[in-house]
C-alpha cells in the first residue's frame, strides 16, 4: 500500500455542506477516472490534492503519496503535477523557456538545453524550442504542456478534463500520449472527466460522483 496515491477518507465540506467523500487508492501506472456532471466538485477534489483549496472549504482525511502525507504540505512541496483543459503555456516565454520553467532545477546550462530538446523530440516537436507558444496548434500546445509538467518530475499526475478542448481525432491521440508517458514513468494518475470515452480509454477503475 505504500506506493501510489492514497486518498484516505478524504471529505470536503463547504459552509457545513458535504461536497465529496472519497476513500481510494491509485497504484503507480494506474489511471483512476472520476466522473460526474459539472458542479459536483471534481475540480475541488483536485485542488485539495495539489494543495490550493480555497480557505472557504474544509478538507478532512489524509492524502498520502508514496507513503508521504501531503496534507500539511504547501502546494510546491507536494510533487503532484496537474494538467488543465487549456494548456496554459505562458505567453511571455518561448516554447523552450516554458519547458525550462518546468524542468526540475539543477544541471549545467547545456545539459538542461539537451533535456528540453529531447523532451520536444519525444512528442514530435523537434526544433520548436524558439517558437512563440501562440503560433502552435491546439494539439501541439497540449503536448508541450504535458512535457512541461513531466519535466518537473512529479510523483503523481492529475488531469482536469485536459482533453475536452480538442476535437475528436486529436483527442484520442493526445489522450493516448498522456497515458503512455504516465505509465512509462509509473505515475499514479487521477483523471477527472465527464466524457465516457476518456474513462474507457483510461482502462482503470471509475468512480461516479454526484
Amino acid at each position, binding site marked *: 500500500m505504500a506506493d501510489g496515491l492514497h486518498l484516505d477518507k478524504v471529505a470536503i465540506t463547504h459552509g457545513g455542506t458535504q461536497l465529496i467523500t472519497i476513500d481510494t487508492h491509485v497504484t503507480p501506472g494506474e489511471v483512476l477516472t472520476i466522473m460526474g456532471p459539472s458542479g459536483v466538485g471534481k475540480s475541488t477534489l483536485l*485542488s485539495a490534492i*495539489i*494543495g*490550493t483549496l*480555497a*480557505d472557504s472549504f474544509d478538507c478532512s482525511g489524509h492524502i498520502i503519496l508514496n507513503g508521504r502525507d501531503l496534507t500539511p504540505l*504547501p*502546494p*510546491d*512541496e*507536494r*510533487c*503532484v*503535477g*496537474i494538467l*488543465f483543459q*487549456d494548456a*496554459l503555456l*505562458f*505567453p*511571455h*516565454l518561448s516554447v523552450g*523557456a516554458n519547458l*525550462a*520553467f*518546468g*524542468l*526540475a*532545477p*539543477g544541471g549545467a*546550462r547545456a545539459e*538542461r538545453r539537451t533535456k528540453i530538446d529531447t523532451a520536444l523530440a519525444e512528442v514530435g516537436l523537434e526544433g520548436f524550442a524558439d517558437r512563440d507558444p501562440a503560433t502552435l496548434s491546439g494539439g501541439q500546445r497540449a503536448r508541450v504542456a504535458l512535457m*512541461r*509538467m513531466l519535466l*518537473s518530475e*512529479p510523483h503523481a499526475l*492529475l488531469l482536469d478534463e485536459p482533453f475536452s478542448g480538442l476535437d475528436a481525432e486529436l483527442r484520442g491521440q493526445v489522450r493516448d500520449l498522456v497515458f503512455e508517458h504516465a505509465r512509462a514513468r509509473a505515475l499514479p494518475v487521477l483523471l477527472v472527466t465527464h466524457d465516457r470515452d476518456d474513462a474507457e480509454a483510461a482502462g482503470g477503475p471509475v468512480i461516479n460522483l454526484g
Partner: protein
Amino acid sequence: MVRFSPLPLFPTLTVLVLLGPLAAGLWGTILPAFGHLPAAGETGPNLEAFHALFDWPGIGPAIRLSLVTGIVAAVLSLAITSLILAGWAGTRGFRLLERLLSPFLSVPHAAAAFGLAFLIAPSGWIARLFSPWLTGWDRPPDLLILNDPWGLSLIAGMVMKEVPFLLLMSIAALGQIDGSRRMALSQSMGYGRISAWMFAIFPAVYARIRLPVLVVLTWSMSVVDVAVILGPSTPPTLSVQIVRWMSDPDIAFRLQAAAAALVQLALVVGAVGLWFLGEKLLARMACARIEAGHRGHNDRTLRAMGFALGTAISLALLIGLLGLVVWSIAGFWTFPDLLPDQFTARSWIRHRAGSLDALGETALIAAIAVAVGMLLTVGCLETEERRNLRLTERGMWLIYLPLIVPQTAFLPGLQTLFLNLGLDMGRAPVVLAHLVFVLPYLRLSLEGPWKAWDTRQATVAAALGASPNCVLWRVRLPMLLAPLLTAIAVGVAVSVGQYLPTLLVGGGRIETLTTEAVALASGGDRRAIGVFGLMQTAAALVPFALALALPALIWRNRKGLLNG
C-alpha cells in the same frame, strides 16, 4: 431617409478636450522658455531663461531630488504591490488587505500627506507614543523628519498613496489572465508562491498595468501638493520650485519657470526611457532564472514582509486620517500627551465660513467637470458601440497621456497663454483643466462594466421595436446605474483632489478645499489643517458612499441588478 446623428461628435470632442489644453499648454511653455513673453515686454527667441535657470544655485539639487524621489517612490510602490500580490493574492488575508486599502484610493493626496505628517512629525503621534518613557523627550525633539533634505518622508507619502492604486489596477488585470490557475500550475511544478507569481503571473499583470505604472512614475517625479507638505524646501523639488516662480509677483520669473518646466519634461522623458531599459534588463534576468529552474521555496520571510508592509500602509493612512480628526477638535494639547486635554468645536466654528465657501467652489467645479465628462464618455462609448469601433492600444495611450505628461510641464504654459491672450483666468478655464484629468479616470472606470454588459439585451429591446436611443436611455443606462454612479464618484474624487490645475489655471484666485488646505502647510496651524483636510476627504468620499447606497435603494426590489 438619412437622419442627422450627433454621435460622431463625441470622440472628436473628447480628443480635443484631452489634447487641446495639453498642446496649448506645452506651446505656452515653449514660448516663454525661449524668451518670448509679450506680457512682460519680452520678445525672443533667446536662451536667457535657461541661463538664469542654470545660474540658480539650487538647480542641481532640485533636479536630483525630482529624479531620485520620483524613481525610488515608483520602484518601491511597484515592488511592494508585487510583494503583497505574490505572497497573498487569493487568500483570506489578501481580501482583508484589499478591503482595508480600497477606500483610501479616493482620499485626496493632500489629506493623506497631512495625515502622515501628523503621524511622523517630531511632535506627531509616533513620537508621543514613545515619549517620555522610552525616548526621554519631554518636548518635541529638534529633528528634521518632515521636509527632510533627502525627501524620505516625501517618498513615504507617495508610496502610501500609490500602492493602493497599483494594487487595485493589478487586481482588475488578474481577473483577465486566469491568475489562480497559473499559480496552481506553477506550484504543482514545485515553485514557491512568490517565485511562481514573479515568473508566471507578474509578466502578464505588468503588461496590463504598464500605463498606470508610468502614471505613477511621472506623477512621483513632478507632484506638487504632496511635495509642498512632505518634501524638502531649500531647495525643493524642481516642480515645487516651478510653482514658486509662477506665483512670484515679478512676472519675469515666468520665463525661468517655463524653462524649468521644459527641463522637468525632459527629466520625465529621460526617466521613462530609463524605466523601459530597466524593464528589458529585468525581463532578461528573469529569463535566465527561469532557464535555470530555481524554485524559491523559502519565501516565508518575504511573504511576511509583504503582509507587514500592506498592513503598515493601511494603518498609516487610517491613523493619519484619525490624526486630522483629533487635531480638528483639539483644545489645548501638550507634548507628549497622546490626546488633547479637551475637545472643542472651536476650530470648526472659526473656519466655518471659509471652509463652506471653499466647499461650494469645490463642488461647483467638480459637478460641471464630471457632468461634461460623463456626457463625453458615455457618448464616446455609445458611438464606438454603434459604429463598431474598438479602442486600440494607441487610443489607450491617448487617454493616459494627460496623466503621463507632468502637470508642471504644461499647466504653467496654459496660465501664460491666457495671460498673453489677455483672457481673464477664472472658473471656466479651471473646469476645463479639471476635465483633462477627470476624463481619463471616467473612461477607465466605465470601460469594463460598459463592455461587460450583455448586448443581447439590446437585441431583444430592438426586436421589440426600441430605437437605439431608447435602448440606451431605457435599458442600458438604468442597468448600468451602479457603475455609472461609481464613475461619477471617481470623477468627483479626482476633481476634488486637483491642486495644480486649480492654482495655476485659476491664477490663484479660485479657492477650493485643496488649494486652501495645501496653502496651510507652511503655516503649521494644525487645527485648521485638520478642518480643511477632513472637509477635503469628505468631499471625495461622500460621493462614493452615495454610489454604493443609491443603487441598493433604487433597485431594492430588483435582485438581478444588485449583485452585478
